[in-house]
């Protein structure tokens, strides 16, 4: 897979009063991700070619992928494939890059979601709804010690679009 062929479809930038190392740890450990990522546990083998998984609170696989870039605490690129039957086959892989840069006494975290083919806005609406919630909660967790309680269901327009493509969702 050539990650250079992927084009950004969603970019979200947030500034956090924390060190780069704390932000990196929040993005890569289950203990912290459970608190800000809807209860999901991030597990990652931090080397290029390592596995990346996100497990739902019941332990089932929610997102699977592979590490493509790993430069702690600056840059992490993984495939971020939601484990729904036929999703990757129909839409191709989803790539997510986190970039962490110092900005004064804070850091700038930029999340970029990319795809290797054109993807309908209805399908992209899932990530566009989810990322601001996840990363707003991550910021609150690191700055206040408490994450946000954000409940949300996947957008109906995304579920409808997936159904039209024959992709089953839970």
């Amino acid at each position, binding site marked *: 897979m050539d990650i250079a062929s992927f084009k950004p479809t969603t970019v*979200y*930038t*947030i*500034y*956090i*009063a924390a060190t780069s190392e704390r932000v990196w740890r929040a993005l890569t450990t289950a203990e912290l991700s459970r608190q800000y990522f809807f209860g999901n546990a991030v597990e990652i083998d931090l080397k290029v070619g390592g596995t990346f998984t996100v497990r739902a609170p019941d332990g089932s696989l929610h997102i699977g992928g592979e590490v493509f870039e790993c430069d702690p605490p600056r840059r992490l690129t993984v495939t971020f494939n939601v484990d729904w039957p036929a999703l990757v086959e129909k839409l191709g892989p989803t790539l997510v890059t986190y970039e962490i840069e*110092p*900005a*004064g*006494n*804070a850091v*700038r975290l930029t999340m970029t979601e990319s795809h290797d083919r054109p993807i309908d806005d209805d399908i992209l609406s899932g990530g566009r709804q989810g990322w*601001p*919630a996840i990363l*707003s*909660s991550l*910021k*609150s967790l690191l*700055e*206040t010690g408490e994450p*946000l*309680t*954000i*409940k949300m269901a996947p957008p109906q327009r995304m579920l409808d679009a997936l159904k039209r493509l024959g992709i089953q969702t839970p």
Partner: protein
Amino acid sequence: MRKPEFIYVTYIETTPEKLWEALTDGDFTERYWFGVRLRSDWKAGSSFEMVRSDGSVSDAGKVVEYDPPRRLAYTFVNLSATYKGEPPALATFVIEPYGKLVKLTLTHEGFAEGGKFLDGVSKGWPAILSGLKSLLETGRPLDVPYAAMKGES
């Protein structure tokens, strides 16, 4: 092709009323908005200005909508030579209660095709709104210098 616009959503542990004050009160904006005070009488059609700490005006436009604590909209363009000839673009803030939180959605639109102002605000808003969230949740704004926000550090 998508129209040129910038959309930003964030969730803040606060009330709609406090967020409204933070978005409209110059004493408050000065603390998280790179020292900028917003100046307006907030009547639809009135002038809207961003005033630097030295008293100079950095950006100017007009108030479009003022419906506390739900919807705020104003146009503005930066007055520096970089954006010469570009029209004021419309920034609309929508504040919605979300459980015990508040969801803030900013939509900034109406940019000139091929202009530079969209790129400028796309770099600025995440820093400004992150600082706003920090100030409301922790009582402290972020310490991010203007140059770092622009990626020029």
